[in-house]
């Protein structure tokens, strides 16, 4: 069954700003670019759109060496050459050596699929430019077999970026854009709820207070994100840590329990210890 609109799922909390942007992309079949701090659910979004709307999902995880062409198809010339040396029959049909990429796969789907292009900013600066035409027309030409591949349905293309590189204007003009703001406490409580339904209220509220206070510490190298919060909660639950330990009094006296899940950087731990030390001195 496939749905026409996206409105979040039982596993994913989507705020109204996000769903509005996604539905715009769904309606016009144009890509949507998602940015946001690490761990704000950029990658998971595509999976949830697919799940929530009952669509197939294709994924393309971009690395620094990824080329735009690889999303369309690759011609495995080396394999063919080898086969020719070995006298393999397959060698006569070049189509045997055309390897379809995720974009091609997406174009072939019988219903409008979701295509995730994850971390586009990892690739070369030219990468987005090389995809302009394909994203516009949703078609491309295969030189080796002289065929034009046209999308049966314009896929819902979700592109994520961690802002390592700026993306070209021509590319941006073709996309919708949404920046996932770091969730406020209310939204975060909802997110926690989909991961750990039925968590004790006191524990949740103390944990969230501690978490947001920690994020506010100036000078942290890496602020803990949603995924760190979720990991931390898992540990707290496993150890059955009582909510009182997290209360604000204790927070000023010592690092929160299992802080390793929140502060992954030694310098940040030191910084925090220093702050606690100063707090205690001032308190005296």
């Amino acid at each position, binding site marked *: 069954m496939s749905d026409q609109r996206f409105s979040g799922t039982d596993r994913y909390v989507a705020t*109204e*700003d996000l769903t*509005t*942007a996604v*539905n*715009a992309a769904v*309606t*016009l079949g*144009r890509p*949507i*670019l998602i*940015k946001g701090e690490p761990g704000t659910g950029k990658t998971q979004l595509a999976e949830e759109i697919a799940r929530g709307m009952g669509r197939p999902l294709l994924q393309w995880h971009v690395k*620094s*060496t990824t080329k735009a062409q690889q999303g369309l198809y690759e011609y495995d010339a*080396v394999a063919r*050459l*080898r086969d020719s*040396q070995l006298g393999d029959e397959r060698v006569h049909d070049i189509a045997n050596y055309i390897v379809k990429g995720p974009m091609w796969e997406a174009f072939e789907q019988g219903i409008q699929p979701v295509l995730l292009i994850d971390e586009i900013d990892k690739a*070369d*600066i030219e990468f987005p430019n090389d995809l302009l035409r394909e994203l516009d027309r949703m078609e491309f030409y295969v030189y080796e077999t002289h065929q034009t591949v046209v999308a049966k349905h314009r896929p819902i293309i979700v592109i994520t970026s961690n802002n390592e*590189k*700026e993306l070209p*204007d021509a590319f*941006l*003009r073709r*996309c*919708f*854009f*949404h*920046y996932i*703001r770091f969730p406020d406490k209310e939204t975060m409580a909802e997110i926690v709820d989909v991961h750990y339904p039925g968590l004790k209220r006191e524990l949740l509220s103390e944990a969230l207070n501690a978490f947001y206070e920690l994020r506010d510490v100036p000078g942290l190298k890496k602020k803990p994100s949603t995924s760190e919060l979720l990991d931390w909660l898992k540990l707290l639950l496993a150890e059955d840590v009582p909510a009182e330990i997290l209360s604000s009094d204790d927070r000023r006296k010592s690092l929160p329990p299992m802080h390793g899940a929140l502060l992954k950087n030694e310098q940040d731990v030191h910084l925090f210890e220093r702050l606690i030390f100063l707090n205690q001195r001032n308190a005296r």
Partner: protein
Amino acid sequence: MLVDFFYRLREGGLKVSITEFLTLLELMKKRVIQYEVEEFYYLSRACLVKDEALYDRFDRVFSAHFKGVEDLFGPDGADIPEEWLRKQIELGLSDEEKARIEAMGGWDKLMETLKQRLEEQQERHQGGSKWIGTGGTSPFGAYGYNPEGIRIGQDGSRHRRAVKVWDKREFRNLDNSLELGTRNMKVALRRLRRFARQGAADELDLPDTIESTAKNAGMLDIKMVPERHNATKVLLFLDVGGSMDDHVKVCEELFSAASSEFKHLEYFYFHNCVYEGLWKDNLRRNSVRLPTLDLMHKYPADYKLILVGDAAMSPYEIQYPGGSVEHWNEESGATWMKRLLDTYPKAIWLNPEPQERWSQTPSIQMLSELMSQRMYPLTVSGLEQGMRELS
């Protein structure tokens, strides 16, 4: 009203293109959103703003433009004349956008489409759409082009909320154009990354292929070398202590942000001028010291040397043995500088001091001369020039 909004955005420094604007109109026609102004805010933002650093600017324009929006929707507001609209739009168009309109069949075609959509919209209006107001005899009214054309959120519930989303200014701290330098940083980083990637190659290893094929009794055996993206190796020497600390921090951040792009990036610290020893850790400056000579042996000549410092010191610190303010140096700073530059032909000095002041500071003059004038200001353009020199 929407056209005005479009121009207000452009005046506000948001480079909204007509393509993006038309996309927004198309979505409204397809009724992606219902009748709430908040949804319209989200939708227009997703269509028109492509950088979170500009969200705040968008919020301000949105707020100013739609303030007391209900009052504007009187039953008989003036329509916008077509000629005026055409002129306004043409003024704001880039060549690319003009070409696009030509490709769509030119202005008349565009206007015709708009008219057509008007009719569709009006039919819907009869069906009860709150988006379309009353005064819709002009083509633009229907398409949301004039203030009377749309009632934004008049009957929605959310606009009665105490604070509107756009008035919360939640993205203010993302607008880093206000802080000097932070915005430039991004551009600088981009330039640095491009520099780091030089030497990238996707290649067939011909010698190895020939050799292997020969060994293979003439059976072709293709050898490829993996694409090397990060070919650039850099030694970064940073002046620490005193007035330089802030600049060093900026520099460290800049380079570490790009560090994954370099094949190798090594940091060392010095004070004022380079002598026989350097520090690996700028905090423990007095404990662990690395002989400069060892370093020159360890890192080959294909490393590029980037020194960052204000080069402001007493000339003694450069010219004479024992001139250093911190320790007894057997050989002069100039001697060490020459040695370094002989080892690393590709070298530059980045100086945070404003360039106008360079000529008044003798030590800057001296170091710049030692560097054969390869001293550049620590600005984006200075960095660009420097990188060009290095590549």
